[in-house]
């Protein structure tokens, strides 16, 4: 098979290293050499090339051959949590969980036994924009593993008993998750940024929505979205393309395409959040405060996608500005970072960290300050070059394992992006200029539309936070309601 190569000149950053070595703080040489030896000539990276085929029933099958011992397989359904009706938040996730809990020929236990005997496990969950079922096994076991994967996707029975069991488990899981300040902060942020639109809901639901979901809702969701002409099968790793296509035909070829029309593309209307809300969730027993700032970001198909990920990398990562200012310079946290979560529709941009309760207000200011600075000053070259290298390096490492490769290629396919983007990735990253980045940050990541959420023991930081942000709204954790954009159980005045 022909492979294409991507020039990964990860060494292009040498200029910055030399610059940092010329700084005067170096101590007298006592080891054989006081300055690091320069790098040698870089090698090029070979990325495996995806090949694809569409079966007669509309199932798109993509294969990526890669030397190794394992094969990963993933079936993607082109809708996930965003498709949950707002009052049934968590539905898609329950469906993804329940397909592995019984089929026409296997019970829940038999499914687990069969796949675990192969050394693997079925990983099944809903995300934003997709539902995915995956399995990773040694290459000799991929046939039997795919047979089980096809069985659960195509013929789940959704027994009432399994629905009830999962309902109880999900409610317990949520109870535990909401004990964590950072989880609360993320859920509140989604509500603040997205209001009542699809990305606003907690992806795994709330106790109330999970209680409301019926078996019928589950069966309907599965029937509507789990169909071959709305799915993508990705196989990657130690497998020949011809063999992979043969297995796909064998286990998915007779998966009938329903006569009903495809679900319409989700029409997400974003009622643009005005931003600049400051919300404190008072959790007096919090051992640490979670501080998060959030606003709308970009879509995956945005023409400024690469500008966006480079801008995010200037802020995020170990040596990104947020961690520099909050952890490295001031010792205020174990880590700080940001995420530009590009989705089918406009996703969120957020920056977050955790700190002791007494320093929550300081840290909120530092996060906001760095976001502001991104749009008011150009990023200098000595910073831009290494931050681009971080983006390129992460991209290459994500493709190193069979499971990582399949996940990345699956995401490109989901968003309808051509695989030649893999080839152009580095060029696109290098093409981002400081001027573009600054313009992008001002227009799309501005601090003015950014909201602040702090979850912690409010009495330790509220006075300081109020000085800076007099508009702060305080919600006691017992009154927090994630089912509504109002965020409160009872209508309370601020």
């Amino acid at each position, binding site marked *: 098979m022909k492979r294409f190569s991507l020039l*990964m000149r990860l060494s292009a950053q040498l200029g910055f290293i030399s610059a940092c070595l010329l700084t005067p703080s170096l101590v007298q040489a*006592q080891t054989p050499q006081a300055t690091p030896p320069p790098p*040698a000539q870089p090698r090029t990276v070979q990325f495996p090339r995806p090949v694809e085929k569409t079966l007669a029933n509309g199932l798109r099958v993509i294969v990526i051959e890669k030397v190794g011992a394992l094969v990963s397989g993933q079936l993607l359904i082109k809708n996930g949590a965003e498709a949950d009706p707002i009052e049934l938040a968590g539905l898609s996730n329950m469906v993804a969980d329940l397909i592995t809990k019984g089929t026409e020929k296997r019970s829940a236990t038999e499914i687990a036994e069969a796949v675990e005997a192969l*050394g693997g496990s079925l990983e099944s969950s809903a995300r934003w924009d997709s539902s995915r079922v995956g399995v990773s096994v040694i290459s000799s076991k991929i046939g039997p593993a795919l047979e089980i994967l096809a069985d659960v996707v195509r013929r789940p029975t959704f027994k009432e008993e399994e629905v009830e069991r999962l309902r109880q488990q999900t409610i317990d899981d949520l109870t535990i998750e909401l004990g964590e300040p950072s989880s609360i902060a993320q859920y509140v942020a989604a509500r603040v940024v997205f209001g009542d639109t699809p990305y606003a809901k907690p992806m795994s639901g709330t106790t109330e929505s999970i209680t409301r979901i019926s078996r019928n809702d589950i069966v309907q969701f599965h029937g509507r979205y789990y169909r071959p002409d709305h799915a993508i099968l990705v196989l990657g790793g130690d497998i020949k393309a011809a063999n992979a296509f043969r297995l796909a035909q064998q286990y998915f070829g007779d998966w009938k395409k329903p006569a009903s029309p495809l679900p319409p593309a989700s029409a997400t209307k974003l009622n643009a959040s005005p931003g600049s809300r400051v919300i404190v969730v008072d959790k007096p027993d919090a051992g640490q405060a979670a501080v998060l700032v959030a606003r709308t970001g970009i879509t995956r198909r945005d023409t400024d996608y690469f500008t966006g990920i480079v801008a995010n990398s200037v802020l995020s990562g170990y040596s990104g500005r947020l961690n520099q200012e909050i952890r490295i*310079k001031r*010792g205020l946290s174990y880590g700080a970072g940001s995420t530009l979560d590009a989705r089918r529709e406009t996703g969120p941009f957020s920056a977050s960290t955790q700190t*002791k309760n007494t320093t929550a207000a300081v840290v909120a200011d530092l996060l906001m300050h760095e976001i502001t600075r991104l749009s008011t000053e150009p990023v200098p070259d000595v910073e831009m070059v290494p931050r681009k290298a971080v983006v390129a390096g992460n991209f290459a490492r994500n493709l190193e394992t069979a499971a990582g490769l399949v996940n990345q290629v699956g995401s490109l396919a989901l968003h309808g992006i051509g695989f030649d983007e893999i080839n152009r990735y580095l060029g696109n990253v290098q093409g981002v200029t400081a001027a573009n980045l600054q313009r992008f940050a001002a227009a799309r990541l501005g601090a003015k539309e950014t909201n602040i959420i702090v979850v912690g023991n409010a009495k330790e930081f509220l006075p300081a936070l109020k000085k800076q942000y007099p508009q702060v709204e305080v919600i006691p954790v017992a009154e927090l309601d994630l089912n509504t954009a109002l965020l409160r159980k009872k209508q309370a005045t601020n």
Partner: protein
Amino acid sequence: MKLRKPIACSILVMLLLSIAFSPEVQAQGSQVSMPRIKFQDRTLPNGMRVLSAVDNSSPTVAIQVWYHVGSKDDPAGRSGFAHLFEHIMFKATRNMKSEMMDRLTEDVGGFNNAFTNPDVTVYYEVVPSHYLETLLWAEADRLSGLTVDDPNFKSERSVVQEEFRQSYLAPPYGMLEYLIEQQSFVNHPYKRSTIGSIEDLDAASIEDVRAFHKTYYRPDNATLVVAGDFDPRQLNSWVDKYLAPIPKPATALPRVGIKEPERKAERRITHRAANVPLPAIAFTYLTAPERNADAEPLRVAATILSEGESSRLYRSLIYDQQVAQSADAIPDLREDLGLFYFNVILASGKKPEDGERALLAEIKKMQDAPVSAPELDKAKNQLVTNELRQRETSNGKALALGSAAVLLGDPNRVNTDLGKLQSVTAADVQRVMKKYFTDTNRLVITYLPEEVNRKVNTMNRAGGQAQ
């Protein structure tokens, strides 16, 4: 295990697996097999061991330095120091200013991190392969000496205290994990949690840093592991140039000699804490250390008990009886002594007694009858496949090699332990279950929410309350 930087959960699990387990080689029948890791093994005149394994499939290289010093070597009154020290190794050295390691790795598209566990401290970097020589120079430089100043030291100490809060105080069951570590041992320094305490961290000084470096950071206490894309002859010449000249001190290396007494009776602890959404229980047992031949049957037992939804604890406690929200069996086998613990979070409406009864019944079943042949095969396939996943990257391969050499005492075990694993029988599993999982060898921790109207300071009560 404590890391310099937060990393994704899945990676953490993979790291833990590699430390726990390094099987290998061919297997028969329906069992899965694994390619050998071909490696070179060299010991320099100054005592430093150098292990290397070539893999040119991607133009990157992983460099690791394993120091045989862990939290069990924390100085008196300085719990958490070995881990704090690990953070300080990224500050100024003779020829590098603070955070220069990040300039040499992250800034060129690579990454670095480090972790400390009770027995070892491991530093690792993954970089484009043409930077190998640069990183060998840098590792030699920080082994030769640290020049960190007081402001940098104090700032990093605050970072570690925030790490303590983030790992143990903020998440609902953080203090339960802390208690498992702290309460399972009475004499051996394993009784100090790797993260230490806020107070002991506050007491640590820059003088402690110098003394600790001098005592433990020496070539005869270090193992360099290089895996990935490199030329072995070049590697040897760079090792000769940068690492071989570092002198070996004349002083002896201190080693922990404290013995943990055998447990004579069941011990029970009840701990109440803030932010406990659902009650939990833990059982801990003292077992064989990781070099012992019982290690493989213990790991197979743990896999049969709690790996995946076909495991016994999942099926019984979570699926059938619905008494638990989660149930795990963790073989935390260490260098001096093994720890094996069970961690059960109860389902809502269930009482700790319900969980305890169900867990004890499952342990008893493993003692009363041998596991079935399909169950045994399944566990072996799971263990081998997990290890294969770990070895997909150069850094994972280096971790497997380093842990075999340093923790198991023989790098060849990276290739020979699979044979041992495949020869584990149902009788072996039953034997270790009977030998270690006795009533007198059990510590029971009951972890409950605070009683209403009773104000308790979680941190001050970290030691729990014996009943």
